[in-house]
């Protein structure tokens, strides 16, 4: 028996969709239905999609974008892994920087004007822990602060404030966000519920399209397991729209083989072309945790890190070419991120340890091409503890994409980003038509005024029975249990006095038996 094959197939536990809450009795409409199309028109004018590519493990930025401007300092700091100057890929319009030789795909995208490099992205007091740094990047918190929601989750909660109550519905038939991976990451976590669904891996996606539930033992337990998996596939609320979307796309360009990032992006391109209105896609690729032997000693342009970078570069190039082929290039912008860069000075094992700031790529037809920022200032004799200072806060990248790509009005950015950040020239702002929150679904809680200075009135709807209204801060701490008792069904109001609270974002959370909904409230001076 092909044991390996079997083991591989056992991953196929169906498309696993944790975190989709509420509205389960509502079946997704086929978006072909004429009335759905008619209803859809007024919802939002913006059809932009953001694709987030997480490079897990901490990508070595200095060997990804080589600082030619300070090349001798670069070589001094990492002689055993430095990329030879003559092999560095050149970039049109700049001599300050070049790309790792494995990244011909991204080089050509950059030279076509479809990619931007943002230099030295980071944040003050960086964390060197994978977990903590990942949480910081995903929650968009300060280094000293623990925020239990994700930045994209807060954005989706802003644009679809009633989700998941009454979703899917005629104005949003589709998942708000899709992640390929076992779990929906913190990035997509809203203030109360996860705003995304996950497809546990690429082979599960194809099993799902084929109606396969994966193998199970020939026992009664196996029979019931298969039954439950089948129901999980069929009745997950977005099954129809996802299958329909995938079914509409019969031809895509060839993606590089043996490249799991490419496999994931191929699905993303297919779903975008298939017509899903999903706002955010997230894919992950790794591991970039190259503590040892990241480059071959004989030829430092080859080795573990080179293979990883080539896969990233090839996958993004294929994805961008596919988007063009599919005719949806204007709608998509992507960005890469990693929890940190690596140390300036390489270690004796031919690798690099955890570092701080690093470059990231933003790509798409609508990006403003070029390089943002300067080559990092490398010391002539880097020591083991030297790290790159950041030039741009990573939250400026998010805030810019929110405002200039996902078209969130500037006045509302703070609700999502928790603070104000500078805007960067990353994407063509002409493409933006301002969006307003989509009020479809069941609005169960709201407040007025918002923002507020001292007090605000929270209006809520209960279906009867025990009803709870809590005010929670952005770290998840309960500030107040405003309402905690039995109600008869109806609409009610309660006043929240927050005069003594620090300014910032707070959440009003409704819990009515098994239903919950959260509304962001901003306290200002």
């Amino acid at each position, binding site marked *: 028996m092909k044991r390996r094959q079997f083991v591989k*197939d056992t991953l196929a536990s169906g498309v696993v969709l944790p975190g989709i809450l509420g509205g389960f009795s509502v079946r997704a409409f086929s978006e072909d239905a004429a009335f759905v199309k008619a209803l859809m028109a007024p919802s939002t004018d913006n059809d932009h999609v953001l694709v987030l590519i997480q490079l897990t493990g901490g990508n070595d930025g200095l060997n990804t974008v080589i600082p030619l401007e300070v090349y001798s300092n670069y070589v001094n700091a990492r002689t055993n892994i430095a990329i030879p100057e003559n092999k560095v890929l050149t970039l049109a319009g700049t001599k300050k920087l070049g790309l790792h030789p494995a990244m011909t795909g991204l080089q050509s995208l950059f030279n076509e004007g479809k990619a931007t490099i943002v230099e030295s992205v980071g944040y003050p007091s960086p964390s060197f822990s994978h977990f903590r740094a990942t*949480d910081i990047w995903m929650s968009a918190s300060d280094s000293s602060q623990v925020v239990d929601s994700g930045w994209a989750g807060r954005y989706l909660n802003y644009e679809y404030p009633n989700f998941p109550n009454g979703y899917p519905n005629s104005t949003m038939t589709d998942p708000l966000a899709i992640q390929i991976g076992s779990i929906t990451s913190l990035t997509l976590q809203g203030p109360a519920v996860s705003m995304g669904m996950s497809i546990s891996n690429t082979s599960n996606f194809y099993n799902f399209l084929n*109606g396969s539930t994966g193998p*199970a033992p020939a*026992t009664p337990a196996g029979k*019931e397991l*298969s039954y*439950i998996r089948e*129901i999980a596939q069929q009745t997950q609320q977005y099954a129809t729209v996802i299958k329909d979307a995938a079914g509409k796309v019969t031809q895509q360009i060839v993606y590089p083989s043996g490249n799991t990032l490419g496999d994931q992006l191929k699905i993303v391109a297919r779903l975008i072309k298939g017509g899903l209105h999903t706002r955010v896609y997230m894919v992950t690729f790794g591991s970039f945790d190259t503590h040892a032997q990241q480059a071959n000693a004989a030829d430092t342009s080859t080795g573990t890190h080179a293979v990883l970078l080539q896969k990233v570069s090839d996958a993004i190039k294929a994805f961008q070419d596919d988007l063009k082929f599919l005719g949806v290039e204007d709608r998509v912008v992507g960005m890469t991120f990693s929890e940190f860069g690596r140390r300036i000075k390489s270690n004796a094992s031919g690798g690099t340890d955890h570092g701080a700031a690093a470059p990231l790529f933003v790509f798409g037809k609508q990006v403003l091409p070029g390089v943002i920022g300067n080559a990092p200032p490398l010391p002539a004799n880097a020591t083991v503890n030297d790290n790159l200072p950041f030039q741009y806060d990573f939250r400026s990248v998010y805030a810019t994409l929110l405002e200039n790509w996902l078209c969130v009005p500037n006045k509302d950015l703070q609700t999502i980003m928790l603070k104000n950040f500078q805007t960067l020239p990353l994407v063509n702002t002409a493409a933006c038509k301002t969006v307003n929150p989509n009020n479809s679904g069941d609005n169960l809680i709201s407040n007025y005024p918002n923002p507020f200075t001292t007090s605000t009135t929270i209006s809520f709807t209960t279906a009867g029975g025990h009803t709870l209204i809590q005010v929670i801060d952005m770290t998840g701490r309960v500030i107040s249990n405003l309402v905690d008792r039995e109600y008869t069904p109806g609409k009610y109001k309660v006043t929240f006095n927050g005069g003594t609270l620090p300014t910032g974002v707070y959440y009003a959370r409704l819990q009515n038996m*098994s239903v919950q909904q959260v509304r962001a409230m901003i306290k200002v001076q």
Partner: protein
Amino acid sequence: MDRRSFLTAIGTPPPVSAAKAHYRVADRTNTSLKEYSGPWTETEISHLLKRTMFGSTKTDIKYFKNKTMIQAVDELLAPASPLPAPPVKDYDTTGVTTPDTNIAAGTTWVNDTNNDGTIQSRRRAAFKKWWMGLLINQDRSIREKMTLFLHNHFSTETNDVGNAQYIFKHHAMLRANALGNFKTITRQVAIDPAMLVYLNGQYNTATAPDENFGRELQELFCCGKGPDSLYTEADVKAAAKVLTGWRNNATLISSFFDSTKHDTGNKQFSAFYGNTVITGKTGATAGDLELDALINMIFSANEVAKYICRRIYRWFVYYDIDVAVENNVIQPLADIFRKNNYEIKPVLNALLKSEHFYDAFNQGCLIKSPLDLVIGFCRELNIQFPASADYVNNYGLWNGLLSFASNMQQNLGDPPDISGWKAYYQSPQFYEIWINSDTLPKRNQFTDQLTLSGYTFGGKKIQVDSVAIANTVSDPSDPNILLDEIIALMFRMPLSSAVKSQIKKDILLGGQVTDNYWTTAWIDYNANPNNTANATIVKNRLRDLFKYLMNLAEYQLS
């Protein structure tokens, strides 16, 4: 074939055509009631506990590891704790026309007669919350599973019965007899005030017979609808006549016999009952005498024991009763049942100690009922409730859990109708009825919410304490051990090593490949638990792990 080796090999069966795999008829087994003599490990203990209680806690598994299988079953069949104190007044009487102000808050209302509709409704709600609390706080015995079995079997709905005192009395009778005599229970049910309301027995008179109870007594409670259940329509009518004259007294909360309403004629039964004639009686004792005769006659039918044993089998083992199971398990169990004059315990004793019960083919195949899911979740994940003295908040929290289970289509105290929940009789789907496009997402929603944000009542929150669970693992700093032991706690079947390594990498290692990252995070957290950042790292990964595992299909199986 060695059944045990099959179970342990679950991860590696031959590949089958995946798309159609589930249409295969699963193989069944020829094992019998012969006493089980195989290994007694956590696998078998967990199986026994999940089937006889709600969920298998680590504490209970550990407890029974030091006992033999025989000792374990003996203990489960002999509840040590006394019957519980009755439900209390947790409600206020605001806006009530006739408030029961003589009942102090926190004391029981079951002995207080009050006909106010609002009071009755609040008492019914209190009864249901109380029962939920008993399920959550069950002792280490089969009592709660059997009480629920009897509730499903002799189904009544609190909403239809209305009178909360009747409801409590009916429930207390089932509970007290949960391991008693099935024939005795049936006789008591026949003149139980709640059942007299529910099936209109109280309106059954000589001049206007109501056949409702007489029918269900045979069709649902005793004989069933199997091929050998050959009672007739005439038998239904005759039984109804036997039962004429029983009435309820809403002041005394008891039934009584009104001989003036009784049909005193002879009642002729069919060949299925040996052409029995129950001689018509008169006077105050007629009701009891004829009822005794009726119950004796019904329980002399061979089919009764078989039917009840099938019901017990479907509650504790699996729904599919093929010829082998009928011959090797049901018939011998029915013999035991008859031989022991319908005592329940000897039947359970034989079944739960049998090689058939521990057969690998019978493990992991029971789809959890909503109550199994909700209560099992609370018990296995050691959800902490307020101190027992805080009845107000406990009742509130239990009520929240009731509503979760009710949304998943199992409303404790209110089964859909007299037949009980469909999962235990509706062929061919049986347990699969619990899982559909509406209820499966609600199951996931429940585990998600109780893991992620919890459920709050009265400022008291119930939520999974992921770190506390991790601390019950032998070495929580090792992500492999952590994952293995959590999977063993939650699932009745292993996950393949490929699935496990993907979960480990994606969740516990945050995408990394080195186990040490989790180990370091765990050690850092334990070295300084008050550091919010360190705590968040560990708690979020564990939270995501629990949430993910409970969203897998495997979690729905018991």
